[in-house]
């Protein structure tokens, strides 16, 4: 019996280690507000929708379950060109399927996102969703511009792993000329110059000179471009991104005349030295767990480099102990849907989900021909009663000792939390010490 229980506990523990965004349903949705598009234009059904912030700005307190599964959707892509943003899929849904196009200026539209394989349950809708931009490649929505840059501004990149650099930009048909390219160059504020020092095959093919090691050909419309490089100089680094139109004068001037820069932007980030162990253990080990389960970090599979010059003992030891994440994930995937683990996994997924359901409305209809209320229906919306601004728990009716106006819960919650954790502590202490009342001491 103990063995059975222990095996069950081990299985539950393995499942509990998983990131719930991988296995659990995490779905929110939202009525689109703040969308940047021209209201008199109709977007084709295949319009691209790009997120301008990640995660999208969703207020989860303004959510309710969608009445039926959407009949169509338009995926929202992130700056890397896929529709997974922060582990979730995003898209616009509608209740009707136009034959050839969608006019987003008419009707009510919704934004939803869910985990990777959970489209079979009705999504939850929220109001107040911002942070995305709708761009139609066939129509001019805005001026030629950069949509996003990589690395993201104010982020930190490490010298020990390749850094993804690139940009997503939109070029109007009217602005496009043949031979147009994106020029990326990087300079370090600590030293005089630091470029992408380890150029990959792409930069070797399209690389330029004079501090502009990255050049990418462009097309009209949306361009999503990225490659990787390894920065070796630490410190604050500035990336200059320029869309350059080749001109006849700049071509014959042997570099004496600057090329025509259509648009330019820059991003500032910090390059730091990190070891593989730092990367694995940062964020309180979340990256390590993520690497174990999802393989989403750059944790190595096996990094025992036989070359004595480049051999890294730390990475080698980590890779020996840490399982290769894709293999481990595949192992778990194989087993998790088998009965009864499929059900167990489903229960854990639902418990880990943060999706909410609106409380039902209680209603009663009086029987006909029975007094003055006959035929009338009375309703009691518990959700509305509890969430409205003037309810008991949110009402600013009390003051704490410092005189600050606070709600009831803001004052009581630390005390309630303390009591709960005290009970937890004594329960654990009781289990460890074995202190208990004898029968004759009751």
């Amino acid at each position, binding site marked *: 019996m*103990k*063995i059975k*229980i*222990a095996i069950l*506990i*081990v*299985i*539950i*523990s*393995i499942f*509990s280690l998983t990131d719930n965004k991988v296995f659990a349903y995490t779905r929110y949705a939202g009525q689109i507000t703040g969308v940047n598009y021209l209201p008199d234009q109709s977007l084709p059904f295949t319009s691209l929708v790009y997120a301008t912030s990640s995660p999208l700005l969703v207020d989860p*307190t303004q959510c309710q*379950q969608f009445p039926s599964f959407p009949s169509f959707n338009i995926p929202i892509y992130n700056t890397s060109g896929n529709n997974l943003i922060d582990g979730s899929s995003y898209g616009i849904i509608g209740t009707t399927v136009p034959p050839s196009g969608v006019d987003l200026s008419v009707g009510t539209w919704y934004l939803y996102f869910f985990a990777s394989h959970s489209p079979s349950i009705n999504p939850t809708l929220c109001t107040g969703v911002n942070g995305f931009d709708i761009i139609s490649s066939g129509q001019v929505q805005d001026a030629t511009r950069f949509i996003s840059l990589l690395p993201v501004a104010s982020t930190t990149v490490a010298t020990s792993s390749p850094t993804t650099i690139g940009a997503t930009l939109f070029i109007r048909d009217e602005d496009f000329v043949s031979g147009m390219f994106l020029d990326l160059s990087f300079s370090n504020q600590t030293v005089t110059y630091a470029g992408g020092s380890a150029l990959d095959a792409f930069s070797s093919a399209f690389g330029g000179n004079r501090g502009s090691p990255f050049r990418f050909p462009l097309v009209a419309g949306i361009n999503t471009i990225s490659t990787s490089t390894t920065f070796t100089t630490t410190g604050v680094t500035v990336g200059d991104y320029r869309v350059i139109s080749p001109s006849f004068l700049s071509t014959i001037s042997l570099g004496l005349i600057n090329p025509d820069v259509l648009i330019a932007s820059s991003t500032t980030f910090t390059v730091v030295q990190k070891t593989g162990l730092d990367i694995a253990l940062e964020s309180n080990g979340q990256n390590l767990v993520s690497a174990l389960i999802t393989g989403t970090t750059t944790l190595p599979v*096996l990094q025992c480099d036989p070359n004595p010059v480049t051999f890294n003992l730390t990475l080698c030891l980590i*890779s*020996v*102990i*840490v*399982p*290769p994440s894709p*293999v*481990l994930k595949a*192992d778990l995937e*194989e*087993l998790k*849907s*088998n*009965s*009864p*683990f*499929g*059900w167990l996994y*489903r*229960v854990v997924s*639902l*418990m880990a*989900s*943060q*999706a*909410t*359901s*609106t*409380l039902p409305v209680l209603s009663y209809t009086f029987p006909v021909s029975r007094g003055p209320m006959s035929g009338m229906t009375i309703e009691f919306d518990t*959700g509305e009663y*509890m969430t409205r601004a003037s309810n008991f*728990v949110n009402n600013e009716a009390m003051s704490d000792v410092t005189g600050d106006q606070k709600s009831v*819960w803001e004052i009581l*919650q630390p005390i*309630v*939390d303390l009591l*709960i*954790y005290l*009970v*937890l502590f004594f*329960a*654990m202490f009781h*289990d*460890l*010490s*074995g202190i208990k009342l004898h029968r004759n001491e009751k």
Partner: protein
Amino acid sequence: MIIQLLIRIILSALDLVFGWFPDFSFLPTLGTINIDSYFATGMGYLHFLAQIFPPLTTLQIAVSIYLGFRAVLLIVKLVLGSRAPIHQ
């Protein structure tokens, strides 16, 4: 590699026993009772109430911690048997 080997041994044993069972992604439906839908809606209610009644979240965390603690105790007892320094 080492941990993977151990985990794969456990998973292989489990797969040997349970691998031939059918796959299930959702909880079953008994007659007209869709347990999956009811459970999902029920958990949604709980999460909704947790937004209004904050101690529910703390309580959920505390219960999770305690269940994990009990799991560790069971494993220690299983491994060490009577030598386990646990008095239960």
